[in-house]
């Protein structure tokens, strides 16, 4: 294994971590706001608050970790993505800022206002949509390079069906991942009314995620044939991913082993996410930047890997403590603490 591969694998792992924890967070925000409008707030609000409160700040760090890490391992991404992403990334920052701070104002400041909740719910859908655009751009065809100047072709990006399929997948996934996790969480809390409602949400969002994923694969065939043919090489990974999907839906349907249903969902996304990542190899940005020509020097790479291992050894026990005290603490989950 080369240092380049180690670097990108670590970053991809953290991005995957972000996709899962942030989806739970974003979806929870949406369900929270939706339940208020649909007059079902009394069912969902408490369970969502209990989960979100101690972990919201941690979610954000996964994202920071990813973008600091990618610039560290692949400094050229700062030049390419930094130049073209000014507008889309700034929009994402604005939304994240509004969302994060208003969550704290609302929860800790005790100033509960309807429009806070509403903004909170909506940003939960807009943030994944705006962040997912980066993946679309990475497929190539949306950048013009004249000499040393890079420009993002906003119009081409905006009218591309690929863009919208990716946005669709990101939003449906957020809702599906979140609902499945919260079903498990409500079940642990013994809150059957919330569990049933969330289970219903999870099942109804399961189909749309698969459909939008298929849509993307279909469009990639025309948009980026090279990537598409690489995807066919790892078709077996997508197949395993699909089997996990079936398992999750089956368990949810049968109301059994909600914890395993969520684990299976994580596996489904992990296989699909890695299959996508592997088939994207070696490009960071089609066709300009690969992980090899964008890589930092060897000394720095080794230093970063060492720092990563040391940091990881520090984080794992801390995260374990966090999960043990809140997520896996029956008393806390049930609201007895």
């Amino acid at each position, binding site marked *: 294994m080369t240092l380049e591969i180690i670097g990108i694998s670590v970053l991809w792992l953290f991005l995957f971590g972000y996709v899962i924890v942030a989806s739970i967070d974003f979806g929870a925000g949406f369900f929270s706001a939706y339940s208020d409008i649909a007059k079902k707030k009394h069912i969902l609000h408490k369970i969502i608050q209990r989960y979100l*409160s*101690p*972990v*919201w*700040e*941690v979610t*954000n*760090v996964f994202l*920071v*970790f990813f*973008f*600091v*890490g990618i*610039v*560290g*391992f692949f*400094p050229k991404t*700062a*030049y*390419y*993505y*930094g*130049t073209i992403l*000014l*507008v889309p*990334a*700034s929009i994402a*920052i*604005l939304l*994240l*800022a*509004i969302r*994060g*701070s*208003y969550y*704290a*104002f609302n929860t*800790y*400041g*005790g*100033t509960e206002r309807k429009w806070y909740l509403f903004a909170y719910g909506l940003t939960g859908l807009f943030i994944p949509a705006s962040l997912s655009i980066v993946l679309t751009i990475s497929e190539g065809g949306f950048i013009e390079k004249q000499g040393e*100047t*890079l*420009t993002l072709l906003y119009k081409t990006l905006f009218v591309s069906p690929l863009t919208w399929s990716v946005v669709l997948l990101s939003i449906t996934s957020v809702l599906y991942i979140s609902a499945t996790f919260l079903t498990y969480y409500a079940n642990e809390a013994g809150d059957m009314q919330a569990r049933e409602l969330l289970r219903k949400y999870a099942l109804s969002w399961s189909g749309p995620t698969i459909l939008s994923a298929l849509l993307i694969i279909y469009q990639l065939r025309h948009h980026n044939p090279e990537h598409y043919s690489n995807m066919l090489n790892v078709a077996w990974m997508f197949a395993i991913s699909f089997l996990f999907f079936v398992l999750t839906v089956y368990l949810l349907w049968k109301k059994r082993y909600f914890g395993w249903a969520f684990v299976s969902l994580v596996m489904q996304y992990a296989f699909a996410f890695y299959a996508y990542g592997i088939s994207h190899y070696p490009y960071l940005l089609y066709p300009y930047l690969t992980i090899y020509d964008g890589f*930092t020097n060897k*000394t*720095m790479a080794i*230093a*970063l890997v060492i*720092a990563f291992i040391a*940091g990881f050894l*520090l*984080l794992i026990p*801390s*995260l374990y*403590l*966090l999960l043990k*005290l*809140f997520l896996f603490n029956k008393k806390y989950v049930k609201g007895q*603490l």
Partner: protein
Amino acid sequence: MWKYDPVLFSRLLTELTLTFHIIYATIGVGVPLMIAIAQWVGIRKNDEHYILLARRWTRGFVITVAVGVVTGTAIGLQLSLLWPNFMQLAGQAISLPLFMETFAFFFEAIFLGIYLYTWDRFENQKKHLLLLIPVAIGSSASAMFITMVNAFMNTPQGFELKDGVITNIEPLVAMFNPAMPTKVAHVLTTAYMTSAFVLASIAAWHLMRGNRHVYHKKALHLTMKTAFIFSLASALVGDLSGKFLAEYQPEKLAAAEWHFETSTHAPLVLFGTLDENNNVKNAIEIPYALSILAHNHPGAEVKGLNEFPEDEIPPLYIHYLFDVMVTIGILLTMVSAVYWLGKQRKWKFIMNKWFLALLVTTGPLAMLAIEAGWYFTEVGRQPWILRGYMKTAEAATSSGHVDTMLVAFSILYLILGIASVTVLINMFRKNPVEKELAERSREREVVSQ
């Protein structure tokens, strides 16, 4: 005619984000230490007031942390979005501390979450206090790592640059550059000092308004004492920073002091104005003080601006920024010393309205000094972004939309600023100390029965 200039707008947007972020970041670094001190004193003295102090500070702290986190995310991304050329080059030598900063921040975030929700979970309060230690370490370590990056921009080392290609990289040498010790120490001590003064302002405000509850008196005493200690520390580090500048960034010190000609027995120039021939007018001059600040000797030679090429001299207005920072620093040290002495000698006037009013200003003044200090060090590095290697103008993005983003972020920070202050005021107004103390003693009675 008005012309769109991405460099100018990138600078403005970065300045704006940092101006706003540094307020919350400073509180984020300093307040955990204050909470820890209050909780520790409360446990040791078995005094309910100090415990409540820690609890109330924590509640306020969470609000500021939230704004600090989101604006920190913003500046983290803006580094790449606005300065892609800089990050592409410097990233190869200095990404290690940036990367480690996210770990420190991660560590802090996890334990802050735990600390917030476990006030009543432990029989033994000391165990709860233990959870705060990683929060304090994490936030201070974050500040340290980020400041290392900033120090690197001032005194880059640990690499070689030939024809735009960077080689021979030594990440640790880059991290531990000459600017690093004084800069990190200055950032940390002033953050502790400023946070203590901000909390002292709040206590002084209540006392000034006629609420003479012993809770506020204890709060004022604790915060002023801490503030005094860290003011002294900041002054000491400030002096060392002057010596660092004289040695490694003489042009910054010379510009800050309007010191044009290299000379011995150099005086320290405070405020004043410049005429068209760069003669200093209307200034207060302290004889030999600049030589002492620079080299610890009244007869020492201090390099003047005449020794530097004209296009590598920072803007001369940084003189005022430097003066504002230093004057406020000295003033605050004196005020806290007077308070401390007054407390020892039982002078009555320290609880007078006018003296309390003076104490109320300490928090805002300290924050102003932080802002002036950062403006001084950042503007004082100009025209360089990476001193001696890359100029700010070469580093900026070529994107055509930085002006729009500047407007968008201005609105965001305005909203966040107003909202965070309003939320904080409402939060504490709705739940005054007296009410909470009464509730807590009632609860204890119920428990003991």
